[in-house]
């Protein structure tokens, strides 16, 4: 493994995080889009039952890295991933791993709310249905209700579960997508800028929700908003030009960044 100056610093602070139980560990991850080297030698340990934020300027590779964690990059033909990413010690890029099973454990919420053009109920029930998580209609109803409750959407939609999911407001749609993602009881929830299409009120609701989800899941959130990272996360990773520049506890990153680039970014000089 290559040793760089910045990496040593990074690894020290990561050691604190690693003290908590590590859910996902990435070592020497490289991502190529055709000839473009999008992610360069990234090492990260993501702790269980915490919120980890990825911040950085546009095009720095944070979303790309996030999509590596549940192999969503597999769908892009020209994308190539190197290195080792483990979930509970198992290599997720192992030849024997079926991405379908992985994605049932590592759920994802996308930047733009993307509910299926089906009813609210069917949106949430889709995951449990295809994975055969429930044995009968009553259990499925139960899972749907629980997921919607945990996504703080139940009270708003309980009377119109058969209404189309696309008919909800933007914030509701995003919470529906979160409900859909947690309905399969994943262990890790990846969120790719989940609030970028939402107004401040909906954002606050989703952030509150993220904080609650921390009790059960390991949440990884990509965000453009440093305030949001500061509000919701316990750990923060700063990406710049495909490098993981700094990774540590959120309070430390925002108050005493060790890398000059991190400091420039959080003080608004680059990005």
């Amino acid at each position, binding site marked *: 493994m290559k040793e760089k100056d910045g990496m040593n610093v990074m690894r020290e602070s990561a050691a604190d995080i690693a003290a908590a139980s590590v859910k996902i560990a990435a070592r020497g991850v490289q991502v190529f889009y055709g000839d473009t080297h999008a992610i360069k030698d990234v090492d990260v340990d993501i702790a269980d039952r915490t919120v980890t934020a990825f911040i950085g300027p546009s095009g720095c590779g944070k979303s790309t890295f996030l999509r590596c964690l549940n192999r969503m990059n597999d*769908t892009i033909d020209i994308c190539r991933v190197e290195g080792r990413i483990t979930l509970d010690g198992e290599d997720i890029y192992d030849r024997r791993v079926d991405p379908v099973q992985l994605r049932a454990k590592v759920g994802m*919420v996308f930047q733009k709310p993307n*509910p299926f053009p089906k009813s609210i109920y069917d949106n949430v029930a889709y995951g449990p249905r295809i*994975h055969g998580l429930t044995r009968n209609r009553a259990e499925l109803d139960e899972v749907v209700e629980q997921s919607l409750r945990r996504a703080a959407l139940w009270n708003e939609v309980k009377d119109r579960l058969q209404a189309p999911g*696309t008919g909800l407001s933007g914030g509701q749609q995003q919470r529906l997508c979160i409900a*859909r993602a947690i*309905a399969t009881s994943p262990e890790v929830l990846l969120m790719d800028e989940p609030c970028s299409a939402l107004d401040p009120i909906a954002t606050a609701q989703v952030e509150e929700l993220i904080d609650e989800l921390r009790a059960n899941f390991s949440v990884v959130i990509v965000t453009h908003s440093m305030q949001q990272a500061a509000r919701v996360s316990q750990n923060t990773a700063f990406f710049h030009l495909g490098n993981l520049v700094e990774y540590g506890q959120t309070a430390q990153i925002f108050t005493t960044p060790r890398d000059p680039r991190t400091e420039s970014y959080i003080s608004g000089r680059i990005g």
Partner: protein
Amino acid sequence: MTATAQTAAAQTAPPRRSLTVLDARTRRRNAAEARFRLFGLMAIAVGIAALFILLASVLANGAGSFRQTFLFLDVHLDEKVLDKSGTRDPEVMNKVTTIGYGKIVDAALKDAIAKNGIAIEGLTDKDVSDMISKEAAALVRDRVLADPTLVGQTIAVKVLANGRIDGYLKGRVTMDSAERDSNVSPNQLRLADAMIEKGLLVKSFNWGFITGPDASELRPEAAGLGIAILGSAYMMLVVLVLSLPIGVAASIYLEEFAPKNRFTDLIEVNIANLAAVPSIVFGILGLAIFINFAGLPQSAPIVGGLVLTLMTLPTIIIATRAALKAVPPSIRDAALGVGASKMQAVLHHVLPLAMPGILTGTIIGLAQALGETAPLLLIGMVAFVRDYPAAPPEGFFDPAAALPVQVYNWTQRADPAFVERASGAIIVLLVFLMVMNAVAILLRRRFERRW
């Protein structure tokens, strides 16, 4: 800003112009826009006028074929002529040809003329018998053979009038033209006038045109579209059943699963090229492969359907791929994100959303196939077919005609009555196309969802 800077700015600024006065540049731009709009309107007007003229001429020429002139006769089925043996054995009665029946029908007509007191000077027997279509004797014969007990009775029949007489009622034949026509005499027209007065000669809706088989050159009045409609329907069934699943499967594979490499690029280019291949080439292909090599029967809807399937496939594949491409990738991501396999993502989410586009493409392809003539000529669909094809699936292998080929056939014939028939067939074809388009629109509405 200092005072000096202000004055400097005032000196260099252009003089203020009123908003109510148009400068030359704006006027030119407005004029150009007005010209462009005019061209657009003219283009639309030309298009609408062309469509209107086309429809008007087809309707004007073809509407007549849906109404036909009939004679109402009481025919006495003489046992001496029809069943000399008196056994009522169909085998024996089969020996009496339409000539025998023709005599009976002629006698019935003469009888009717005499009874109604119609007297036309110089009217010959031939004139009288030529009033009736040659089809009439066959009609009576079929009826008697179906029910031999009718022999000896007098039955009321509705028989077709001769094509020229029908033309006279529709204004195609006049006294003047009859003078010069060896097929019809003014005496016959006078007789026709008298018979109309007595209610013996009546125009009514012509079911035979829609359900009947084609007829020979000499009896345009009996020519119908039944076999052509059946043949076209069978072919469309074959095309739909084959091209929809094959086309959709091919598109889904190419769009969602196939790796993007030189080979798939080559396939893509070739599908686009295939859509531009002249249809007659497909006809030659069908003749060589399906008839000469595979040994399928000529003139059969199955062969026509296979050829048209080959022709329709590129259209369906291109439309389906466009529809699949139009589904937002976020839907695929959403499905994959909750752990659906690629096939589940496609079948549960992408395909339903692409359905309106796929169905529209399919129906456009089918409509093209329905109107296609050239390849069918090469595989023998142009043959003269009098027997109805059986019900599917056997019927797919029986000889049949096709609507556009029937139109082509009738326009080749000499008798002017066939012009009316051909236009009538075009109307039927257009109705089929309109129904298919209406179905396409309905299905679109039914499947269309917003996302």
